[in-house]
């Protein structure tokens, strides 16, 4: 017996002619995510991808955990692949699913026979296996409508597969299938969640972080690395650009009105990010902003920020409550990292009384004292590049 993963494509099958390239991308992502555990062979047929490990001693629990984090999978099964022999199937299924059968109180058997040469049809398989299970586990009752446990036998071209209830996948679209975007990441709770949400829609991520040493500590950068590491478990590798931001923040402080500090700072971030994103072939910027959360996230402030970006700005959290964002951050395990107490560049020089409803013309006038182009060029020149795996 060997174990495999059977992946049922969710949304992918809706994509008509694109399907094949989406599946290619999903398979490539799976191969990359699973390669540290074992080399895998992938087979495709009838909207199912079979992932078969070449290493017999692979840690299959770890395989299941990793597959559960790959976007583009609606549901999957951990299955045993056995010889297509009726008596082997009947003998093996109760043993393979023994623990689940012991715990359940109701069950049913489902059979799918895509190999029509197999001498028993689906109802025959169901009947024989159901009877065998009832004999071996007399406490069980059959419930065809809402069983606790569904034992499935799929007779396909190479093997017969035996598995129990499907495991919910991460959903979404394969990372990279929708292109690439740059995530502005500070270290707070919001930006990793925003990145995760867009990665789920098939975007490959590039990270951009602004560091202001000595106002910010190396710990703040470590924190961003750790956060992106969590997101990368879903999205695949992320290239992180760390931008030196100290000089720009000090220049803004010295040359611009205090009440507009944050908005002008964010406009500089947008300009720098647009340049880096364009160089990296990104089609959009991603931020963790949501309406009304802080002074820089009013409609007026967001409009001023957008004005400085030369790419579309995606804000997946725009209409979300903080509680909902926190619950996603717990789910993707970024929350505990986000709440570590290291100041990021957004908390340096925060004005006491920020302008809540800035007007674009007055912001543009206020930042006229800055040598925007020179500062921008200097910052982009100083970026540090890391690959987060």
């Amino acid at each position, binding site marked *: 017996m060997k174990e495999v993963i059977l992946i049922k494509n969710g949304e992918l099958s809706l994509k008509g002619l694109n399907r094949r390239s989406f599946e290619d991308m999903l398979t490539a992502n799976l191969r990359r995510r699973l390669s540290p555990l074992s080399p895998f062979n992938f087979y495709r047929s009838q909207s199912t991808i079979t992932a078969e490990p070449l290493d017999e001693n692979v840690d299959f629990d770890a395989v299941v955990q990793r597959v559960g984090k790959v976007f583009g999978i609606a549901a999957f099964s951990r299955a045993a692949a056995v010889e297509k022999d009726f008596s082997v199937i009947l003998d093996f299924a109760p043993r393979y699913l023994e623990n689940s059968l012991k715990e359940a109180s109701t069950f049913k058997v489902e059979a799918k026979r895509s190999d029509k040469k197999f001498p028993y049809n689906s109802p025959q398989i169901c009947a024989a296996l159901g009877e065998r299970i009832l004999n071996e586990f007399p406490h069980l009752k059959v419930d065809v409508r809402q069983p606790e446990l569904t034992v499935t036998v799929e007779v396909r071209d190479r093997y017969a597969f035996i598995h129990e209830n499907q495991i919910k996948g991460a959903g979404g679209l394969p990372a990279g299938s929708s292109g690439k975007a740059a995530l502005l990441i500070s270290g707070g709770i919001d930006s990793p969640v925003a990145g995760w949400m867009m990665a789920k829609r098939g975007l490959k991520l590039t990270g951009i972080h602004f560091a202001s040493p000595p106002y910010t500590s*190396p710990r703040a950068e470590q924190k961003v690395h750790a956060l992106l590491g969590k997101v990368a478990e879903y999205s695949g590798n992320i290239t992180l650009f760390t931008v030196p931001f100290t000089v720009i923040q000090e220049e803004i402080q010295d040359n611009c009105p205090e009440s507009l500090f944050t908005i002008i700072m964010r406009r500089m971030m947008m300009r720098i990010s647009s340049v880096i994103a364009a160089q990296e072939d990104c089609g959009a910027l991603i931020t963790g902003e949501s309406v009304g959360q802080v002074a820089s996230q009013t409609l007026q402030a967001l409009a001023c920020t957008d004005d400085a970006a030369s790419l579309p700005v995606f804000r997946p959290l725009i209409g979300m409550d903080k509680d909902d964002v926190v619950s996603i951050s717990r789910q993707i395990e970024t929350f505990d990292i986000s709440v570590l107490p290291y100041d990021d560049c957004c908390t340096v020089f925060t004005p006491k009384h920020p302008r809540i409803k800035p007007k674009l013309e007055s912001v543009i006038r206020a930042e006229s004292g800055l040598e925007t182009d020179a500062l921008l060029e200097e910052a982009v020149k100083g970026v540090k590049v890391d690959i987060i795996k």
Partner: protein
Amino acid sequence: MLIYLDNSATTAPCPEAMEAVTHALEDTWGNPSSPHAAGIKAEALLENSRRTIAEKLGCSSDEIYFTSGGTEGNNLLISGAVKARQRQGRRIVATAVEHPSVEAPLRQLENDGFELVLLPADSEGKISEKDLFESVNKDTILISIMAVNNEVGSFQPVSAAKKAVVAAGAPALVHCDAVQAFGKIPFNPHSAGADLITLSAHKIHGPKGAGAVFVKSGVHITPLTFGGNQEKALRPGTQLMPAIAGFAAAAKALPDTGKELVRISGLRDYFLNELFRMPNIAVNSPKDSLAYIVNISVPGVLAAHMVNFLSERGIYISGGSACSGGKKSRTLTAMGLKDEIIKSALRISFSRFTRKEDIDRLLQGLTDGQKRFLH
């Protein structure tokens, strides 16, 4: 070259400690409880280490029990004492400026229904003897007072505790967290009047993972953990021999306490004199505090910013107290300092490896930092 002036957080292991650790790993890795020769050899090293620590503290080696460090030691002694005496009273007296590894177990006991009295600190970070005498009553079963405050270096009137116990006729044990004092000032259980004392290895150039507690002969406390008979069953578990051997070697290697204190006081005075050439500087440590710890503020410069700035230049100091993890310093707050002073508070802590050149580099760094941030 790196300038390490954060010795109240931890110290660099001394060569003697490193050698002892390596030797114990290579040569003395037997289980000290085993009956065979390998065990006997390890036991000999263990008992030798115990004698060294006992001599350094000025007590009998029967009174020393090895632990994993300061936090475990404080927890063991505090909850062990309270459990052993809980039928004789309900009150616990301590200072409001104890280390978190003392305060947190005390709060646990308070949740369990004991009455916790925390004595306030004055503008010098010290509690008053008068408060102490007034708070100790017949119902008091434990007094916990640190020897030296870890944030500003103030000495607490530890020896008054025993007098207060006698005056009140209290069934109380006296615990002293001496983690910051051990090896730095003449300090012994008798003069301190303490029944229970906590020590840690890595504050005296030993390795992390070892510490010791002193439990006065004849005093019984209840263990925190249960298992074998190691450390007379007060702290069961196979002893971490390399760390313990390193602890003893570090203690043995300490220079003469009195002479070294004179040298460190000289460095501290030099530092403060030079520091006052800088405009707008505040010194938060009281004049008569432990010379090894100096707490200062550069108003207008957030502590974290100065720490980062100096770190980039290879100079390592601490903002407020290294243990407080971003929280506002309790000691400085208790001392009634202004918010601006607390936010910019820096802790500089010396060691036997600190030289005048290190102080000069720090002074230069602080001067540059002040200019950098207050341009």
